[in-house]
């Protein structure tokens, strides 16, 4: 047919596009939780209980951490958050917190551990000083930390059993013995001129040189913490631990936290815990170190972090917010969010258009 127009032309083909899950797809588990009102209390804590200055400081903390991360970290973030890396810490967090708010639906109903929660909240708000964050950052930066942490995390519940058994062999019988041990240790640390040598020697005796296991890893971590690489590290560590110990003894005089820690360690069930055999903490430790360094250098961020922790652990808040946090940590919401982050950063669905 003769003609100069486009009457008989077909429309040009649509440009190719990817087929990745959308943001709504990725965040569906989180949105479903919200729709079921399973995040209401968490939302209320953040929106209404946290004071505006702390809200701003917390947002600023996230921005500062993102800004301080080394170049290329964003592209590696999804991998770093995987279950065999930073994600491996989530079950530990769950184990530490899940019994605290109680469970009224259980048979028999489990009451909240109000005294423990009170102690946790007080210590979180009052004892996490910038000195302690400086010490934490140095530990995360130490090249030997990754090996010790990998060993400790990979040991999982059996490692916890090994630690408890070793302490009992060392004379700390049962729960009360463990609390007494922690009290004595904190009292010693709180004294000026505390020497970590005898403590490390004691651990050396408890560790089987042939199979150091979790206890050996714990000893190594303690050595990294209190000895460091330079005399200044030891001074700083002693100062930080002294301040924390004094604060701990003042705010938790009955060692409620130690008792709870014992309960968690003693009840660790190798059959239900599922930590990967091989962890790669060296990959995510720089991330932790950066975050801790930002916390150490920003007083407002430190205050906001401590306030948020203290608020979430406060008994009247925790009984409602902690169960929601546990549900959130066990759900697919966080993996979905991490996967979305991966989609956005790694751009697997970007279609290369030929020009």
């Amino acid at each position, binding site marked *: 047919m003769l003609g100069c127009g486009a009457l008989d032309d077909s429309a040009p083909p649509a440009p190719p*596009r*990817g*087929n*990745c*899950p*959308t*943001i*709504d797809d*990725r*965040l*569906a588990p*989180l*949105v479903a*939780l*919200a*729709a079921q009102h399973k*995040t209401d209390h*968490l*939302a*209320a*804590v*953040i*929106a*209404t209980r946290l004071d505006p200055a702390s*809200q*701003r400081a917390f*947002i600023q903390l996230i921005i500062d951490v993102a*800004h*301080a991360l080394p170049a290329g970290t964003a592209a590696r973030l999804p991998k770093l958050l995987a279950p065999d890396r930073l994600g491996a810490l989530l079950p530990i967090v769950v184990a530490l917190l899940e019994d605290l708010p109680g469970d009224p639906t259980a048979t028999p109903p489990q009451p909240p551990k109000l005294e423990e929660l009170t102690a946790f909240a007080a210590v979180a708000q009052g004892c996490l000083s910038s000195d302690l964050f400086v010490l934490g950052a140095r530990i995360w930066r130490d090249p030997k930390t990754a090996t010790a942490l990998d060993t400790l995390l990979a040991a999982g519940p059996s490692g916890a059993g090994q630690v408890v058994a070793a302490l009992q062999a060392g004379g700390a019988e049962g729960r009360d013995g463990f609390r007494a041990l922690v009290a004595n240790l904190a009292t010693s640390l709180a004294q000026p001129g505390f020497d970590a040598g005898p403590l490390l020697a004691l651990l050396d005796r408890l560790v089987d040189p042939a199979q150091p296991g979790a206890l050996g890893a714990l000893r190594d971590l303690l050595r990294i913490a209190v000895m460091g690489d330079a005399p200044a590290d030891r001074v700083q560590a002693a100062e930080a631990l002294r301040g924390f110990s004094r604060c701990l003894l003042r705010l938790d005089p009955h060692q409620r936290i130690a008792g709870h820690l014992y309960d968690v360690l003693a009840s660790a069930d190798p059959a239900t815990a599922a930590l990967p055999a091989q962890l790669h903490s060296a990959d995510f430790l720089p991330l932790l170190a950066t975050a801790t360094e930002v916390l150490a*250098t920003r007083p407002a961020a430190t205050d906001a972090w401590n306030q948020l922790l203290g608020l979430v652990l406060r008994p009247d808040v925790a009984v409602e917010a902690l169960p929601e946090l546990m549900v959130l940590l066990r759900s697919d919401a966080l993996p979905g969010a991490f996967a*979305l982050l991966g*989609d*956005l950063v790694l*751009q697997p*669905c*970007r*279609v290369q258009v030929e020009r």
Partner: protein
Amino acid sequence: MRSRGWGDVPAVQGRSGGRAVAETRGIHGEQCRGAERNEAAPRVVEPHRTGSASTVAAAVAVAIAVSGAPACCWASVFELFGASPRAAAMAGSLTAGANDGEAAFHNPAALVAAPLAGAFVSGTLTRPSLSVRLQHPICLAGDLACQGAHPSGHASRAPVVPADASGWAVGWNYPLGGALRRRVAVGMGLSLPNGHIMRITGPDPQAPHFPLYEGMPDRLAFLFAIAGKVHDTLWLGVGAQVLAKLDAAIDLRVNPTNHAMDRATIAIALRPDAGLTAGAVFAPTRNLRFGAAFRRALALTYGIPSDVYLGDALRLAIGLSHTALYSPDHLGVGVSWRPTATLNATADLHLARWSQAPDPSPQVALDVQGAAVRAFGLQDIVDVGTDTPPIRLGFRDTWSPAAALEWRATSAWTLRAGYRFRPTPAPRASGPFKYLDSDTHVAAAGAALRFGSHGAAAAERLAAAAATPADAPPPLHVDIALQYHAVTRRLALAVDPYDPVGSLEHSGAVWHATIAFGATF
């Protein structure tokens, strides 16, 4: 207060090779005038009002707004330097003495003073040489890096100084004929920036900058007016100064994981806005005139709300609004006296209502919404600027006196000179927002060369108007003018020790030159 010496402080100047900044410190000009008094910049905020709208000049406004050049900041070329080379040479002292196209701006009623029609085209060149001296060195890296490099403090904002600029202006006046002959005249004035079609900028209010001079050649000025003689001794005029309003809305549905835009809708509307101008002249004798003129406040406002839909889980509402090109309400009174046939003396007093000036900084609001945000109670926490009220400038109304002389030295040459004092409306920049200005002395001079002879028709009109030779110069003319603005030194000590810029000192000069070619007919 900081006591560190200023020996190594950085100075930012308007152009390379500008004159050195004097080292003398101190607070100058403490007389009560404008906002130069010893007052700190305000820190509280309050709502502001905007200029009025009119539909009188709708078609003209749209045409000019589309093809013209509204831009940044405050005050037009006309307001700062005058609407013609004659006005520039007489430091703007023309409320009673205007007599051709320049009258559309300086006093619409004076349009009927000219017995002949006239037009001119002028070119302008403005060369600011303004400088800012900071107490601290400038560091634009991150806070941590800057704190490490400059432990005694740093300025996290660099001063913005105005650049050289040029533009064009047109003036036109036309006395009507027929039954309205010698009774009614119309006129217009237009100032066009040079070098770009449109430029609107919104400087960071915390960066030290000179809002009256920045982008001033980008400020379109367009006025038209009509005037009539109520009586031979009483003339009235009315007109409009035209700008535009820009409204836009953007609706995007983005699929970022697939790098796709599912939907994009953009709507832009440009609406005219005009401010009233009016004037009156009382001429009891041929040699004496009293004038009064008023220009309504005017500004260009625009708002661009954007909805970025990423999904039900997450969406962003981004709002951008800005009020630029603000001119305050202006009232001027003046007198023009001709003691001899060759000498004209004028004096003016101008009130500018700067106290009504709105926040000139861009308003940006980011509202994060969606189920994923609400799940953690973050819907209000991560928002930015949604509850930020506009900045309260704390500007003061100013009274500005001016005086000028115009002398017809020969039949061909006319010489002019003028002086104006412009008190600053801006408070000392001691607060977080650094709008810099200070009292300014304006000295001006110029000359006009007239030549040629009128045709028969023009000569007839002149005779009918009983015009004197002073009223009817030769038809062709070349006018030149030069203005020097001596911007006095001003020291601003930062009130807040965490001020992002710190204490500063600013001063400088602005040169303005213009040349016009015109004719009467």
